[in-house]
């Protein structure tokens, strides 16, 4: 999809937990919580509050009256996307709930841009969240359980990111998007989600360059959402074997957000991961003129704990959005 009237990213806002705040990108986030619960009674409530904070932050930064926002698009990892639903209850905006697992930020920006470019909206608010502890208890083990994590395992980011898209104004623009196909290369290991998602990301990247007749060097930065170190290496290898050399501008938000000393093994994952890296680091570098054309490929693992226990493999998906300064 190429947008005829590319929507503008009017503002962005990111809220993260303490671990993300200590990471290499700590200074790029708008707000860092001192602890994961932030005074709420449960992690689920905290995650929903975090999403609200990010969305309200984006609205305030753009100084746009809330009544002017036509749609709110949001998603998260919890069952029935409750963090987004409860945040939407407070936001009181026309709400479209999205689920693309960890790819939801890219999906939301793509759908929001379609709404604006199609003439159905002037302003669309997009936000996603994830929380380490809510994801852990839903997908894996109780958090106080003493167990070792696999070397390929990733750490779910506690964070929420939001962007406000508008039909006109000043700021970086969303120029094109590629909606991904679900690709399943029969990976069953839920501790190696990067490997499960890498083929879908590679497929979307191939399709994007084919559709747009461009090459990786035409972009200053190509960032996948949360493949982690293992998934990123696999995606590079898949693309290389398919005849596409990604060069040096290909990286992964899940690799950027933590450093080695934080002991996260393969890197980060979760909706929050790509959303806070985009809302923080990437958009700031675009605004500073350091990056001209960036592609974000949100990566999602579309499984559930039930499907994994029943022996189903993990379907992956990748959605690409291109943002130009």
């Amino acid at each position: 999809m190429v947008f005829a009237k590319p929507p503008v990213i009017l503002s962005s806002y990111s809220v993260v937990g303490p671990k993300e705040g200590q990471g290499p990108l700590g200074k790029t986030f708008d707000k860092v919580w001192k602890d994961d619960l932030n005074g709420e009674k449960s992690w689920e409530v905290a995650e929903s509050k975090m999403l609200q904070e990010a969305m309200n932050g984006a609205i305030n930064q753009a100084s746009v009256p809330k009544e002017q926002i036509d749609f709110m698009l949001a998603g998260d990892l919890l069952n029935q996307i409750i963090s987004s639903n409860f945040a939407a209850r407070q936001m009181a905006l026309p709400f479209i709930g999205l689920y693309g697992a960890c790819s939801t930020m890219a999906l939301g920006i793509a759908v929001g841009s379609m709404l604006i470019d199609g003439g159905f909206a002037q302003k669309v608010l997009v936000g996603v969240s994830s929380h380490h502890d809510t994801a852990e208890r839903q997908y894996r083990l109780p958090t106080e359980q003493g167990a070792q994590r696999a070397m390929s395992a990733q750490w779910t980011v506690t964070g929420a990111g939001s962007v406000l898209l508008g039909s006109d104004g000043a700021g970086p623009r969303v120029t094109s998007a590629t909606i991904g196909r679900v690709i399943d290369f029969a990976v069953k290991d839920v501790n190696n989600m990067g490997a499960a998602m890498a083929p879908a990301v590679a497929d979307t990247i191939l399709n994007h360059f084919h559709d747009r007749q461009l090459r990786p060097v035409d972009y200053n930065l190509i960032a996948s959402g949360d493949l982690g170190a293992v998934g990123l290496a696999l995606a590079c290898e898949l693309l290389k074997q398919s005849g596409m050399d990604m060069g040096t501008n290909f990286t992964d938000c899940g690799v950027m957000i933590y450093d080695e000393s934080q002991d996260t093994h393969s890197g980060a994952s979760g909706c929050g991961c790509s959303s806070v890296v985009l809302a923080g680091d990437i958009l700031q570098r675009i605004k500073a003129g350091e990056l001209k054309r960036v592609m974000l490929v949100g990566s999602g693992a579309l499984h559930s704990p039930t499907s994994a226990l029943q022996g189903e493999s993990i379907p992956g998906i990748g959605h690409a959005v291109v943002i130009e300064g």
Partner: protein
Amino acid sequence: MADQTLKKPLLSVTAEKYQTLIKQYTPKPTIIKNVVRAFIVGGIICSIGQIFINLFSSFGLARVEASTAATATMIFLGALLTGLGVYDEIGKFGGAGSIVPVTGFANSIVAPAMEFKREGYVMGVGAKLFTVAGPVLVYGIATSIVVGFVYFLLH
């Protein structure tokens, strides 16, 4: 819009071939390091248990009673350290060394109890208490029944 007459690009790697790529790129578990750490941590936990057995024996308890009291003490310590948020750190370092002893069992009960308290005492703590330890109990008890039955037949 893309030119629909063009052939769609395809990943030139099959799912089968991908499995070998995964093996190649996924870091191996650090088995030797884990085994050594498990040996040390497990050894320390068991040594502490032995200290308690000796201590209780010196108070005049019989051998069997002393080891029962020591087991109860170790369960208490495992639960306490879980509650203080320390046991998961020990588990991360020690692996099987801190899972196999009775303290690990205490951890596997207390951790879900803490985790699911927010869903209430019946459907939360009550229903989820044995999410980790449940399989161990089910197959442990089932095995002991079978072994007990065989023992009964042989004697």
